[in-house]
């Protein structure tokens, strides 16, 4: 009897704190439900989310680590096995968490939730929480685990190893296309944020000479002093933001930094081509330091800001746009919400990071849970904060900033009338006043998510420091912080894309594989830049803002890559003879295939021209055949360009669908083969050498 009592006490001791935490989470959710109808305090949402994360980490990730994967602390990790002090270094787990988190957290978790807010804050919140616990964090953890047991190999190599060379090549081509779309959509966000904004443009432009000075400093003056040079750089950035106001207010200077979206598009394309060929120490590395520290700092500041300000959520829990009639992006809740919020819930891109440097730095297998599962929970928390930020804005302002110009017109009066007609009353004075507060000429149709987030961050930060007088400063600080790490991603991504392409081209013409040859480099860079430049230009000239077309393509491709990663996880579990537990990867994989497959087919085949690329092309072709010119086209040649763009987008959709369908078939075959085997058939390294 005492034995059983002791066990009961032990169980209670172990689980009681978690039961209390579950209670707190439930209370917070209850608080939200009780306050429905009036404005809900954002803190409820944050507390509920954090409770979910902690409980999921304590129970589900533990189940994954010990029962499903069988992490074995006694097993040598690549960092120990191949220790070289350079690539393979056993690293303290909290330090490695920082490394991994800084690599996975980017613009994705900030932008997606802002766009998703058009359906209200609740659908996005629920998907962020369920998605990260059962899909996103599982994917990151699984890929990290699989790579860690195979010498830290890359994602493409892992697929080739466990699913065959055909699957490996298909996944690589898919990954390259995804990279192209990501770069285009990121660049589009920058264009939308900086168009006709001399203040923003000046500060972002100032980062180029600033980074070059930093590069020279770390190269020759004080070699390798990263901390020192970053502090100097940050001071320079602050001065650039402050001086940017003077630039914006001096007509002669403002003219030099005022560009239209199309001009900015060409500037970015040129920039991408040059930056990707410069030596890394000169521009890329120093700006990476700045953007990384600024990003981490801004995320922490945002968390503090929300906790202190405790703002109310002014966006309703649901809006009428769950039916798919929303102005920010088209499509109904299923499947489009699940591809609009990609990073933060589940992101296939993380499969590339979790099989990059991180698995080579893990000191003990047991750490993989904290780093793989834990860091993704942290990223989801960033996404929740972005959703909160978008939802504390006046919904009238939110829709003024995010609806297309074709709907709003260009003056505060027309915009106010259009947004009020949507059911979100706002007057022209409020729109003009908000633009003035943040130091911009206009906030109408500043799509892409970044400016919306910047207005929200300016509200939160100015509540903490500086009040209304500092709002314009904080707005441009937020724009700079987003633009900076997007530019770093564009630069690094173009470079990575160039290497990927040189590998692929090298199959046909071996000379092109030589990464030291200038003509080969220039050719690959040019091809890579024109690939994303094409989609960027298409997005910039799209009257619906471009985000409407590009973001779904990005979401579909990114979530499909996640599905591929989870299918790899399923195959590996089958081959480990742990197929009874393979549902942990198979169920989220199936869900993602369902969402992305439906979304892809709708984008391809829907008869609604707002949704389907082919239907849109048909509408324009029929009109062109009769000699009509439909808005936004101004001439028949515009009409033909739009038709061509639609067909390219449709072909891309088809390609993504084909990638996932073929990987699915190959995965099923691999699972069936593994089931017939009596013994495990995985290609992992033995526990001991």
């Amino acid at each position, binding site marked *: 009897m005492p034995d059983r009592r002791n066990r009961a006490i032990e169980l209670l001791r172990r689980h009681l704190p978690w039961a209390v935490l579950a209670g707190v989470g439930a209370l917070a959710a209850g608080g939200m439900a009780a306050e429905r109808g009036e404005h809900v305090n954002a803190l409820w949402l944050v507390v509920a989310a954090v409770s979910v994360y902690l409980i999921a980490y304590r129970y589900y990730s533990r189940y994954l680590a010990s029962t499903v994967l069988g992490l074995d602390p006694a097993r040598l990790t690549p960092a120990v096995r191949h*220790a*070289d*002090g*350079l*690539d393979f*270094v056993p*690293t*303290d787990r*909290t*330090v*490695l968490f*920082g*490394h991994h*988190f*800084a*690599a*996975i*957290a*980017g*613009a*994705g978790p900030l932008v997606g939730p802002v766009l998703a807010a058009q359906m209200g804050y609740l659908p996005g919140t629920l998907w962020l929480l369920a998605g990260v616990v059962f899909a996103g964090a599982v994917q990151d953890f699984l890929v990290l685990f699989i790579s860690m047991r195979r010498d830290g190999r*890359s994602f493409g190599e892992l697929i080739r190893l466990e699913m065959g060379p055909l699957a490996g090549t298909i996944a690589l081509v898919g*990954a390259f296309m995804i*990279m192209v779309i*990501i770069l285009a959509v990121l660049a589009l966000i920058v264009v939308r944020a900086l168009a006709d904004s001399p203040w923003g443009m000046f500060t972002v432009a100032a980062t180029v000479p600033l980074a070059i000075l930093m590069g020279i400093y*770390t*190269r020759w003056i004080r*070699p*390798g002093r*990263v*901390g020192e040079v*970053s502090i100097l750089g940050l001071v320079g950035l602050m001065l650039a933001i402050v001086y940017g106001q003077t630039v914006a207010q001096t007509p002669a200077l403002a003219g030099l930094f005022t560009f239209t979206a199309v001009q900015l598009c060409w500037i970015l394309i040129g920039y991408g081509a040059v930056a990707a060929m410069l030596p*890394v*120490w000169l521009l*890329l*590395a120093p700006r*990476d330091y700045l953007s*990384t*520290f600024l990003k981490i700092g801004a995320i922490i500041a945002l968390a503090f800001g929300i906790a202190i300000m405790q703002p109310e959520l002014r966006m309703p829990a649901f809006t009428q746009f769950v039916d798919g009639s929303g102005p920010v992006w088209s499509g109904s809740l299923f499947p489009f919400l699940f591809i609009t919020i*990609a*990073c933060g819930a589940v*992101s296939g*891109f993380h499969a*590339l*990071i979790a099989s*990059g*440097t991180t698995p080579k*730095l893990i000191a003990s297998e047991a750490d993989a849970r904290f780093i793989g599962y834990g860091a993704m929970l942290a990223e989801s928390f960033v996404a929740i904060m972005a959703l909160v930020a978008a939802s504390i804005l006046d919904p009238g302002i939110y829709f003024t900033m995010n609806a297309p110009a074709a709907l709003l017109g260009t003056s505060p009066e027309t915009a106010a009338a259009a947004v009020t007609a949507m059911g979100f009353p706002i007057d022209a004075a409020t729109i003009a006043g908000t633009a003035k507060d943040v130091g911009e000429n206009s906030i109408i149709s500043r799509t892409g998510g970044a400016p919306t987030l910047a207005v929200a961050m300016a509200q939160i930060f100015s509540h903490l420091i500086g009040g209304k007088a500092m709002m314009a400063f904080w707005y441009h600080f937020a724009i700079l912080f987003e633009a900076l790490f997007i530019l*770093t*991603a564009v630069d*690094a*991504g173009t*470079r*990575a894309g*160039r*290497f*990927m392409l040189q590998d692929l081209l090298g199959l046909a013409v071996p000379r092109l594989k030589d*990464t030291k040859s200038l003509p080969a480099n220039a050719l690959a860079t040019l091809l890579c830049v024109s690939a994303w430049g094409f989609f960027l230009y298409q997005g910039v000239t799209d009257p619906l803002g471009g985000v409407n077309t590009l973001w779904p393509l*990005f979401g579909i491709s*990114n979530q499909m890559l996640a599905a591929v990663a989870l299918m790899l996880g399923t195959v590996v579990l089958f081959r480990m003879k742990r197929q009874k537990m393979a549902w942990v990867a198979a169920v989220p994989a199936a869900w993602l295939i369902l969402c992305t497959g439906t979304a892809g087919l709708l984008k391809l085949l829907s008869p609604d021209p707002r949704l389907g690329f082919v239907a849109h092309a048909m509408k324009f072709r029929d009109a062109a055949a009769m000699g009509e010119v439909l808005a936004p086209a101004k001439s028949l040649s515009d009409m033909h360009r739009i038709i061509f763009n639609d067909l390219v987008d449709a072909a891309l959709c088809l390609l993504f669908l084909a990638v996932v369908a073929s990987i699915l078939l190959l995965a099923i075959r691999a699972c069936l083969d593994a089931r017939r085997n009596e013994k495990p058939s995985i290609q992992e390294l033995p526990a001991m050498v």
Partner: protein
Amino acid sequence: MSWMRSFRYIRRLCHAMVGLPSYPAYLEHMAAKHPDCAPMDYQTFFRDRQNARYQGKGGGRCC
């Protein structure tokens, strides 16, 4: 003392976030495993790691 330790920890964390491995750990490794080889000096080590991070392997960063 603990103040100094937190400073070192934060510096280590910041370096890890931009992909710079620990130089003391590298020296330790060289001393233990390759006592006959001269390790790189900090400047060479830093340049080597900077090139390794951005040469394209590992696929850039996330969305």
